[in-house]
Structures are given as structure tokens and as C-alpha cells.
């Protein structure tokens, strides 16, 4: 590489006659080729080390790596005749999950620059082979909108080709009596869940009921009795049952990766008026457009109130508060993963600390459930006035697992099971020993730091073939498939009973301000 040689290289073609490649040319021309050998060697070493690490980790955390398969759709050709009761916020979502959106929603979703995914997801959603034959909402505006939604069979915007509009029933009983209704979706205030589900079951109609299963304890017993007697297919609306990571989490528990589990910590954090159930009041709502008497039902009489109609979750008269609306999601997730059953005791405390708008249900609430037979406590904490995200964490002697859309498992520094691997340096307790990201194909769970960071930001959910699917859609689909196959779905009446009773214990503990105990023998809630 000497100076003089470089000069020689630079000589112009005019002065330099054509010549053959010299040995020097060949050496200089290929001088850097060995670098590729070094690269290949370094790469091979790195790969060997990584492979070795992964295979050793796989021995420790032996989980299947395939994404959870979607249950196949059962189709017998004949559409199921659906009825919908309640077309509020949740009713609209449930209808979309069943394949029906209002034309105005389609028009807005199609052009929503910030969220075109909503529209694409909806349009790609499988046709569930159902026909909505009847709708019922005691607010005439919602009733009409529900009918228009059900008629939008081609999923088109305004001016699109519509199907036949379903009958708009004035009362839920008329809807349930209709012969063309095989199954009904109930998305009404809590105090109407069980009475409607019971009447539906009595008529042999299958039920998809929003959570919680009931507003009161006696109603819950009645519901279980009728559903079992009639043998209808009952699905409680905990769509979390379809969450991939929950299904995976169950495998983690079944394979005893966390060691002896002793504490579960779950929470709810919200901090806006919508999250605090202060829903908008419709401008056309008044005493002439709302059947107020039907809204009240068995609840204590109260004069007409738009607040109470649209924001019913804020009053114990119609609602089960945080316990029924939010604790149940967390409880049901854990009941699915660990098979909790009904707690032996529940204590609760909280208050109305932020949203002092006349509501009667607490906006900050703590619930502690004890499961002495399983040697574990379940701790729930909720606030509707702070957004700090606190994870859903299962704690065992050998490790902990945080559950969100993803699963993250850490070994415990004082673990007995992993002490050898921790000492050897194979396991670092500050780095997850397993990470599960739905939609990530071929993943074995031992992800890179970047992937972990991204997963926590939710950015890795939808890409390539990792198709995002609405869990509510899957939950309704499972229910419909079970109706066709005459089997019970994942959140069946037994699960609903455990969910309902656990929530009732929490509500009674909240209201009584003392510990509620479950008398297993007499099947009743008692106070010590």
C-alpha cells in the first residue's frame, strides 16, 4: 500500500499501456476478502451462543411456541335468528362484533385518518351467518338506529343497499316471544341482565349476556337454575376469554413455571369522564322518547332523569359499580387462568373521592379476596381518577408473570427452582425469561430488548400475518358456534355464577363495610 504504488494506480489510461493483472493487483484487489471470513466466524460464534442459550432456556420454560389457533367456525347453512336488547355504547359494539355497523359508522370509520384499522378490521371480520330479526331499545332513537344497523347486511355506508329491517319491539318480552328469534344478545343496564336472561332462557332462547351476570344474589341463583333446566347455550360477555395471552397464561400456570402462587395483583386505572361512566346525554332524549317506567323495572322508583338513564352505572339502583363493571373483568381473567372459584372471604373499601357528581358508587375501590384452599390472595385496586398503568401480575415463589396483551415472565431472584441457573448466569432475574407477543410468528418467547420495548408499546401487535381480531367478535362467534354444536362456551353459566357471586361478595362487603364470607355448604354470603 505504499505511496509510490498508489501513485502508480492513479496513472491515467492515456499514458499507461494496457497490461495484465500483476500479482500485486491480485493481492490488493482481494486484500479485504479475509474480512468476510472473520465476519462469518464471528457470526457463527454468536449464533452458536444464542442457540445454546435459547435451547437451555427452552428446557426451563417449556411452552409451545405456536400462536393460539382460532377455533374453526361451525356452519350448518341456516342463519341463526338474533334479537338485540339494548343499543347503547356496548350494544353498538356487540352488533359490530356480530357483523353489523350503522351506515354512518361505516362512513366515518372509512375516512378516519387516525384509525383506518377499525374499518379494515370490521370489513375483514368473518360473516357469522346470523340474521338480526328483532331489536329492542326503550329510547326510540336507539331503537331506530339498531334497526338500521341490523339492516346493513352488506356493511355499506349511507345510500348503500340495505337488507330487510328487523322488527323494533317496544318491550323485551315481545321480542323474546317472537318465533324468529333463536338467540338474544343482552346489553342493558346491570339491573336488567338477569331478569331478561331468565325470561329468554324460559322461552328456550340462547343468551349472550353482558357482564355482570346479575344485579342481585337471588337473581343469580334463579338465572343458573333456569339456564340449566332449559339447557340453553349461555355466554357471559367477558370477551377477555378470547385474549390470546390469557390462553397462553393458563399454559404457564398449568406447567408450574411460577412455582407456588401466593398473590395476585390486578387493577383498573382510568382518568376521564367516559371512563368514570359520565356518558354523553343524547339531545333527542326526553320523557316522550324514553320509556322511563321500563327502565326502572324492579329498581326503586325515581323521577325521570336523563343522568340516570344515560349514566346509570353511577347509581347502585341500576349498577354494580366498579365491582360489576371492572373487577369482574379482572376476576374472570384470573378465573380463566388459575381457576379461582368463589373466594372464601372478600373485604373491600373505597369511596367517592373524585367524581362528586351525585353518584352513589365509589370511584376508588380496593377489594381483597382470600382463597385459603389455594393458599393465595387476590388483590384488586381501582381508581377512576388516575391513569397510571399497573399490571396484572401473578406472583409465585419462583417467578412472576405480568399479563397484558403480552405475557412477561421474570424469575424471582430468591427462587428455589431457578437458583442454579441464576447462579450460573443463564437466568438474569432482571430480564424476562419468557415473553409472549401475540401475532409474532415462530416466536419462542426469548425476545430481544427492542422487541420487549415495542411489545410494551403495543406496536408489534398488527403486522404481517399477525391479524388483529376483535375479541368481542371471537366471543360472539364462539357462542354462535356452540349454539350450532349444542355445547357450552368458555364463559358458560358455571363461570358466570362464580363471577357473579364473587362480585356480589365484593359489593356487599363494600356496602356493609365488613368482610363477606362464602358459606359453601349453604351456598350463601354471610358476615362474620
Amino acid at each position, binding site marked *: 500500500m505504499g505511496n509510490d504504488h498508489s501513485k502508480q494506480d492513479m496513472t491515467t*489510461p492515456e499514458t*499507461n499501456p494496457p497490461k495484465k493483472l500483476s500479482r500485486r*493487483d491480485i493481492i490488493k484487489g482481494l486484500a*479485504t476478502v479475509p474480512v*468476510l471470513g472473520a*465476519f462469518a466466524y464471528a457470526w457463527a460464534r454468536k449464533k452458536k451462543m444464542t442457540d445454546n442459550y435459547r435451547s437451555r432456556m427452552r428446557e426451563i420454560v417449556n411452552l409451545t411456541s405456536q400462536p393460539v389457533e382460532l377455533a374453526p367456525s361451525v356452519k350448518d347453512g341456516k342463519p341463526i335468528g338474533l334479537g338485540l336488547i339494548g343499543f347503547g355504547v356496548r350494544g353498538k359494539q356487540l352488533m359490530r362484533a356480530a357483523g353489523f355497523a350503522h351506515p354512518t359508522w361505516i362512513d366515518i370509520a372509512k375516512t378516519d385518518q387516525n384509525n383506518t384499522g377499525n374499518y379494515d378490521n370490521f370489513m375483514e371480520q368473518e360473516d357469522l351467518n346470523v340474521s338480526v330479526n328483532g331489536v329492542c331499545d326503550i329510547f326510540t332513537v336507539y331503537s331506530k338506529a339498531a334497526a338500521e344497523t341490523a339492516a346493513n347486511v352488506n356493511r355499506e355506508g349511507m345510500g348503500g343497499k340495505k337488507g330487510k329491517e328487523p322488527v323494533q319491539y317496544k318491550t323485551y318480552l315481545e321480542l323474546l316471544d317472537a318465533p324468529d328469534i333463536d338467540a338474544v344478545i343482552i346489553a342493558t343496564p346491570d339491573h336488567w341482565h338477569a331478569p331478561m336472561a331468565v325470561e329468554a332462557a324460559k322461552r328456550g332462547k340462547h343468551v349472550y349476556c353482558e357482564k355482570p351476570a346479575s344485579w342481585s344474589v337471588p337473581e343469580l341463583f334463579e338465572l343458573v337454575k333456569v339456564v340449566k333446566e332449559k339447557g340453553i347455550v349461555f355466554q357471559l360477555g367477558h370477551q377477555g376469554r378470547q385474549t390470546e395471552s390469557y390462553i397462553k397464561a393458563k399454559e404457564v400456570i398449568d406447567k408450574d413455571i411460577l412455582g407456588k402462587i401466593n398473590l395476585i395483583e390486578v387493577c383498573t386505572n382510568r382518568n376521564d369522564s367516559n371512563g368514570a361512566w359520565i356518558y354523553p346525554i343524547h339531545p333527542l332524549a326526553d320523557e316522550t322518547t324514553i320509556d322511563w317506567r321500563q327502565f326502572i323495572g324492579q329498581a326503586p322508583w325515581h323521577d325521570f332523569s336523563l343522568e340516570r338513564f344515560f349514566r346509570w352505572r353511577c347509581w347502585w339502583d341500576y349498577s354494580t359499580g366498579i365491582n360489576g363493571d371492572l373487577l369482574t373483568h379482572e376476576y374472570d381473567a384470573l378465573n380463566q387462568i388459575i381457576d379461582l372459584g368463589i373466594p372464601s372471604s372478600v373485604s373491600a373499601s373505597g369511596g367517592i373521592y373524585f367524581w362528586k357528581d351525585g353518584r352513589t358508587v365509589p370511584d376508588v375501590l380496593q377489594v381483597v379476596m382470600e382463597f385459603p384452599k389455594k393458599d393465595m390472595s387476590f388483590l384488586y385496586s381501582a381508581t377512576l381518577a388516575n391513569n397510571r398503568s399497573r399490571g396484572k401480575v401473578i406472583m409465585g415463589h419462583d417467578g412472576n408473570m405480568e399479563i397484558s396483551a403480552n405475557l412477561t415472565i421474570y424469575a424471582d431472584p430468591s427462587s428455589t427452582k431457578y437458583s442454579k441457573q441464576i447462579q450460573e448466569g443463564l437466568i438474569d432475574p432482571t430480564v424476562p425469561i419468557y415473553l409472549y407477543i401475540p401475532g409474532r410468528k415462530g416466536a419462542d418467547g426469548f425476545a430481544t430488548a*427492542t422487541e420487549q420495548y415495542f411489545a410494551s408499546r403495543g*406496536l408489534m401487535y398488527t*403486522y404481517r400475518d399477525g391479524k388483529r381480531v376483535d375479541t368481542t367478535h371471537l366471543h360472539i362467534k364462539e357462542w354462535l358456534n356452540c349454539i350450532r354444536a349444542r355445547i357450552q362456551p368458555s364463559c358458560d353459566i358455571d363461570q358466570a355464577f362464580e363471577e357473579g357471586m364473587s362480585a356480589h361478595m365484593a359489593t356487599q362487603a363494600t356496602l356493609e363495610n365488613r368482610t363477606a364470607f362464602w358459606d359453601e355448604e349453604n351456598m350463601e354470603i354471610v358476615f362474620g
Partner: protein
Amino acid sequence: MGKKFISIDYTSIQTFLLVTLRVLLGWYFLYEGIVKITNPDWTCYPYLMDSQGPFAGLYHSMAANTDLVFAFDFLNMWGLTFIGLGLILGLFTQLALVFGMLILVLYFCSHPALAFVSYAMPTEGSYLWVNKTLLEIFTMAVLLAFPTGHIVGIDRFLSKRTDR
């Protein structure tokens, strides 16, 4: 390449340093390419989504297009690999530098080093206008202005041939 560089007259230490810098950069590109090719899950999607600054909207809209993401994945994987090989071997060196700079400019525009912006990819806090990508761009510009492929590299054979 012949005539353009006749005026450049390197000392041996200059040649050595320039070639070393070129090979190191090549190694870096090659690794980035190979690591993506060998990871079946790799995609540029999260990187595009992580974009901030004046062009963020453009990058986000690219991320929304599955076909475009697929094309970018392919171009990144093989582009980085071939640029890396080119720089190490001194093969089509100038072309590799131009394409390398082009890719880096696209990276820089997606993740400009604005004073109060920090990114997830890579996670290293925020810089003040100047970041590693910008330094790499200018390093490559220097190598473009001070070519070495025709001295140490396969380009030497090619330049001999064209010289004839």
C-alpha cells in the same frame, strides 16, 4: 472510475485508514442486513411507526400499507447486505456508498435528532440535531470523495479493465 481521481495521491497511512474505515462501515452494514435476513419476524413496521418529526406522517402512512412494508423489508434486508459486502470487498464501492447514504438519509428523516424527541428504536435518549446516522452519512460522503475501492478492492480489477 479512472480519470476522476487521478489527482488524489494517498500516503500509505491514508490509504490504510480510509480502507479500514470503509471495511468497518461495511461490516456494520453487513451485520444489519444479515441480522434482518435471518430473523423471520423482522419487519420495518415498528421502526416506521416510531417515526417522529416533520416526516412522521409520511412514514406512518407507509407503515399502513402492507405491500409497501413488504417491499421496504426486502430492500432493507438485501440492500444493507449488498452495501456491506460492497464496502468490505471494495466492489462497486462508489455505488454502495451512494445507496448506503440514500438509506441513511431515509433513516435520518424518519428519526431526526430533534432536541426534545426520543425514540424507541434505538432507545438511547435524544440528541441535539446530530446523531449517529448523520455522522455515518458524512463518513460515507468522505469515503465517496476519497475513493479506495480501485486501490484495495475488487474494483481494482474492474478499473483496470475499463482503463484498457
